[in-house]
């Protein structure tokens, strides 16, 4: 009986909330604010869940996000991103870049120890570098390092790299991909070593136990160079089904997970969740877009592309598809980051303007069937997207509906990912696609927009070609001066907004939830987990005691 009553209430609450919970974008925390002041304390366990299981815990070999989640806690890099996306030292205390931008000299921290007690030195970095550029190493991250002309160890704590040409993304590439313990790996085949599943690192956590298919248990590294992490244990449970994961969260089997927009806005808006959990919200480093095949006779004309941009209401897509948890995209960068240019042409929803542009290009409904035509051809095209991503499919449906209103017939085809990529994208057999890019914090997007990157399997698959953009992309990656880079990327965004090779649709928000006993979480543009070692559970709130 209680059960029924409770669920009736639940359904009632859902009904009331259905019209939409609109929050201000950019507000990070939505938690119970009756904060008590607590002292940081050591102890307790953080349990998080993942759909996939890690495969390799050496960062340079890992291709999946689960592997990087764990490897990121075990390995540190020379540099890392600060919360404002500037680059700060991690294992490197400082560095100098030569005037011509060709030479970077890193000065490493002294006294940092691998978790087996051996000291970390510049030789470990050189070893990691030599491993990653080795032809036999199956890594997806080689390319940045192939730009290096010479890498050398000057002394135990000084490491220097010389580039062939100045290469701005170079600095950020010296993260945790290239730091490996030379004393454990020298002379061994990296794909065959036990390090893959039993890594020795120098990060805040070390792997204690890995039960395949079930969980990975990590323990804090007490001699971590930035100080012992407060939370003693970090458990990574593998739960392949997202619905099961959400139930585990409610039953207390998980402390942290990423929520879907539906879970964030509706299903976690209950008393229990408000009391026991804290929710966060910040833009993900990715955007979803509709890309045109620029070789297509209609989409060659920028006015047609502009017309379609005017006919799409981005706000509506965000409200319906993401339950409002996102922001409109205006270019290939995330709002409120330094390369983002807020002052570009924005295509506010304007179907009249769209119709007018189409009419100017000769598209009129001459036979009165509701579909525009020109030279006897109907304006009809197909949007392709990949299976398994409902957000994209729903976005396509809304676009289909909006374009029907201005007289364009849109078909939607949803394809299995491999078919989609191999048969349609690679062979350029598409008119328009809905896809997303995740973007690195470094603004270099040479591979996506440069006109030289249009071969099969390369990423300028729409065939975009603009000499000015080519030049700006080149300029942006050849200087370390942030102001100059900013100028180049701002201009690129203006051009892209004017020419509309993509219709930039939205930047979704990440919406993680964490049990409220965890304190010290400081949301930032790069998320929440960057300062995990500084999270803590106050003594009186600790849930899991360490077994002796």
């Amino acid at each position, binding site marked *: 009986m209680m*059960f029924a009553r*409770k669920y009736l209430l639940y359904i009632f609450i859902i009904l009331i909330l259905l019209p939409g919970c609109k929050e201000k974008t950019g507000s990070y925390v939505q938690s119970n604010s009756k904060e008590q002041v607590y002292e940081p304390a050591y102890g307790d366990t953080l*349990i998080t869940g993942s759909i*996939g*299981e890690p*495969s*390799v815990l050496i960062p340079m*070999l*890992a*291709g*999946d996000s689960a*592997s990087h989640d764990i490897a990121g806690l075990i390995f540190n890099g020379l540099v890392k991103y600060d919360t404002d996306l500037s680059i700060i030292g991690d294992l490197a205390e400082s560095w100098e870049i030569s005037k011509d931008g060709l030479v970077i000299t890193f000065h490493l921290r002294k006294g940092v120890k691998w978790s087996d007690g051996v000291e970390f030195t510049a030789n470990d970095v050189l070893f990691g570098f030599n491993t990653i550029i080795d*032809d036999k190493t*199956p890594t*997806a*991250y*080689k*390319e*940045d390092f192939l730009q290096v002309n010479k890498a050398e160890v000057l002394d135990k704590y000084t490491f220097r790299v010389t580039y062939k040409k100045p290469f701005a993304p170079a600095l950020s590439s010296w993260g945790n991909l290239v730091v490996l313990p030379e004393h454990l790996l020298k002379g061994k085949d990296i*794909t*065959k070593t036990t390090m*893959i*599943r039993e890594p020795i690192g120098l990060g805040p956590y070390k792997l204690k136990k890995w*039960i*395949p*298919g*079930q969980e990975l248990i990590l323990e804090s590294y007490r001699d971590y160079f930035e100080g012992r992490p407060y939370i003693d244990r970090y*458990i990574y*449970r*593998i*739960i*392949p*089904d997202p*619905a*099961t994961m959400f*139930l*585990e969260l*409610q*039953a207390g*089997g998980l402390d942290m997970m990423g929520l879907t927009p539906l879970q964030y806005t509706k299903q976690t808006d209950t008393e229990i969740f408000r009391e026991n959990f804290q929710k966060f919200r910040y833009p993900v480093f990715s955007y979803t877009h509709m890309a045109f095949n620029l070789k297509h006779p209609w989409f060659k004309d920028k006015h047609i592309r502009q017309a379609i941009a005017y006919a799409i209401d981005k706000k509506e897509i965000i409200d319906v598809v993401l339950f409002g948890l996102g922001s409109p995209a205006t270019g290939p960068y995330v709002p409120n980051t330094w390369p983002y240019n807020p002052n570009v042409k924005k295509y506010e929803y304007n179907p009249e303007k769209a119709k007018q542009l189409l009419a100017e290009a000769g598209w009129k409904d001459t036979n009165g069937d509701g579909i525009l035509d020109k030279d006897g051809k109907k304006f009809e095209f197909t949007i392709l997207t990949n299976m398994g991503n409902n957000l994209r499919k729903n976005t396509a449906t809304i676009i289909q509906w909006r374009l029907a209103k201005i007289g364009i017939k849109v078909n939607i085809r949803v394809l*299995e*990912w*491999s*078919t989609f*990529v*191999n*048969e349609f994208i690679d062979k350029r057999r598409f008119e328009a696609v809905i*896809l997303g*890019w995740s973007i690195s914090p470094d603004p270099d*997007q040479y*591979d*996506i927009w440069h006109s030289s990157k249009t*071969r*099969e*399997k*390369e*990423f300028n698959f729409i065939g975009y070609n603009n000499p000015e953009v080519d030049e700006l992309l080149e300029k942006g990656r050849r200087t370390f001066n942030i102001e100059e880079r900013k100028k180049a990327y701002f201009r690129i965004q203006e051009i892209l907004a004017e020419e509309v090779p993509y219709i930039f649709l939205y930047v979704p928000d990440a919406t993680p939830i964490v049990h409220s006993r965890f304190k010290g979480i400081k949301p930032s543009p790069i998320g929440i987990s960057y300062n995990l070692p500084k999270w803590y559970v106050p003594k009186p709130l600790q849930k*899991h005691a360490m*077994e002796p």
Partner: protein
Amino acid sequence: MINYILKRIFEMIPTLFGITLISFMILHLAPGKPTDVLADFNPKITPEARERLEKMYNLDKPITVQYVLWLKKIVKLDFGESFSSDRRPVIDKIWDSKQPLFERRLFITFMLNVITMFVILIIAIPLGITSATHQNTLYDRITTTSVFIGFATPSFWLALLLMMFFGVYLGWLPISGLKSMNYDSLSLTGKIIDRINHLILPVFVYAFGGLAGDSRYMRSSMLEVIRQDYIKVARAKGLPERVVIYRHALRNALLPLITLIGLSVPGLIGGSVIMESIFGIPGMGQLLFMSVMTRDYPVIMGIVIIVGFLTLLGNLLADIGYMLADPRIRH
């Protein structure tokens, strides 16, 4: 008899070979490659790097060559290495000798299926018998309707509802996995109870869907037997109905069930893929699902071989069991 069994075992070899050939071809016909996971839409991968990767996995060779390479290994019982970036031997993934027996994927799936089959039989046989003896009564209609509801209910949906009710709302049963966080600190009895608790929901959901087939088979086979002359004779002799049904009729009515059990092996293992993914059970089904998603050919093929072998073995055992139980077909 021995000759027959030997002949059957011998026949299994070309069948198994055929299974691998067809599976291998179908697998490679599907678009996509194991390297896609690493390389698709990753701007940091140049076409050259992609080619290097493909070469490393022999994916640049014609499919026939790839099959022969794989076959050469498999006849030596070498399942090869996984294509996922950990490059572990396939056999370690399916049957990890470093883990205790009840943590090995094949064992977990096998046990789960055996327990489920046991539960199904325990419930389905009496259900089938009683609805046959009470044919066309209200009882018969109710049981028939209920088992068909079980058959028609989507298992993932039922699983989620039960997890919500018993796991979240009542908090009686664990939601996923095979053991609790504090498992290592439990006493032996505690450990056993903990394991059983974790099995209740998956086994129930799994068995609920399987009841219909076996109980309906049992019912119709029982009905057929009851109409036989020797049953009339037994009744005419004045034997009590209990003895007629359970001693004389049941034995013969059980025969078709032997075949049914033998044939249900692939179905059960197919069901494991779904159940193990929902309940987060680290068995072979879950491994198969993840491997298909990443196009990890050697692992998929390894599992196909094992499942194929188990299916053939199930058929063989069913036939042998049938022969042992029924003198009429022994020759």
